[in-house]
């Protein structure tokens, strides 16, 4: 089988500078609950590898820090990602990678919505519905081929 790349020539962007986590201003209390913010969530997902290119989702601008919305009070995170081409058939795999990484990284109290950015995908509604149907996600993660693909993309993000 000849496998053709869906986007053969993606544009590569510069990575954003890595900022150290800002130290708490108050005297250090090791039992204090640390707030989870936009930067932290972005740090969890920026190094996920694209399923078909040796670049990170950040380098391909599939995700940006601004596309992460966090409401720590409400235990809510939303990530909007932008596929490199609007008919990208890898969109559900990318979305699955984002969901799995956040599932493994964030406390279980978090509710996570993963969506493609409005107007960035030909079948936006269908992709969003599938990515947010937890039964479909659970079934997909029991599929070893799909899980291996996800794990390959996530490997660099655990460094």
């Amino acid at each position, binding site marked *: 089988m000849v496998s053709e790349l869906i986007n053969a020539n993606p544009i590569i962007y510069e990575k954003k500078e890595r900022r150290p986590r800002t130290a708490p201003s108050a005297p250090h209390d090791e039992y204090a609950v640390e707030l989870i913010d936009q930067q932290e969530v972005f740090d969890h997902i920026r190094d996920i590898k694209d399923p078909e290119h040796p670049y990170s989702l950040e380098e391909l601008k599939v995700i940006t820090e601004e596309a992460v919305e966090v409401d720590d009070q409400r235990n809510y995170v939303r990530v909007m990602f932008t596929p490199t081409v609007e008919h990208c058939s890898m969109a559900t795999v990318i979305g699955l990678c984002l969901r799995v990484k956040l599932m493994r990284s964030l406390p*279980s*109290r978090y*509710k996570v919505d993963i969506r493609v950015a409005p107007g960035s995908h030909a079948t936006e509604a269908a992709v969003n*519905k599938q990515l947010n*149907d*937890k*039964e*479909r996600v*659970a*079934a997909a993660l*029991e599929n070893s081929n799909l899980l291996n693909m996800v794990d390959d993309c996530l490997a660099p993000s655990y460094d």
Partner: protein
Amino acid sequence: MMELKEIQRLEGHTDKVWSLAWNPTTGHAGIPLVFASCSGDKTVRIWEQNLSSGLWACTAVLDETHTRTVRSCAWSPSGKLLATASFDATTAIWENVGGDFECVSTLEGHENEVKCVSWNAAGTLLATCSRDKSVWIWEVLPGNEFECVSVLQGHSQDVKMVKWHPTEDILFSCSYDNSVKVWADEGDSDDWQCVQTLGEPNNGHTSTVWALSFNVSGDKMVTCSDDLTLKVWETESVGTQSGGGFAPWTHLCTLSGYHDRTIFSVHWSREGIFASGAADNAIRLFVDDNESQVGGPLYKLLLKKEKAHDMDINSVQWSPGEKPVLASASDDGTIKVWELTSY
């Protein structure tokens, strides 16, 4: 004032608890209440109430049969058989032999994940549904044999739940395609047809329909959805009308604004209270609103239980016993047993 009081928090499953089912023959005449639960850990657990302490304990673990998530389970009306539907594309039938559960049959045929299984009122028919978009009807034959008598194609997507009407051989299915379909055997010869589709044009849901439940008399049905609403439907007569033919279901009312994430489960009690459980970790109870003005909402919120679980609630089910007892199953891996009490 009413209160939903937590009686017990049951631990044992090691993954999401997807569904639970009460044995309908328990909770009466000195027989302790029993229910089954199933999970992403690929097992089914049987829980029994101790009559003296009133507390539940796990009495059996049904494992090493399903190879993937067990998505739902259902007891036969006699309470002797338990059917379990799995993402491994099979439905297993378990027989209770003196407290031990033996897998006596495995129903194969669906192309991929089986999402739900339901017994008809007489225990003579079984229905299953799958992500393969089909609904299968199986006839229960002597000797734990099951024969597929019909494969129903009609949904355009993943079928999430099947449920038989509580008194008639009419089957209801709800789907990722946002609709509820009603199936009946009009020719009396295993000629099952879709007789009605409740979709957006009939005031239906605008996203995945996850579950449905009937009231005790079977003339009303409540559905719940990813569109964050609950909808109540009614029919003029259950079963076949005097002139023959099927009495259609119509939309009665929509309850919105009560849950702010997907509503996965709804169950109507014999006393007329329906409970809903959702991805917002909350349980809501609704009752008939006797003081409702003409054109006003016909059901009102009786009680809300925020933070009922630490994570999504996947299933809420009223017990068949005398007291109003509700069990809930969650992604947090626990099951909680609640009693509705007044204070």
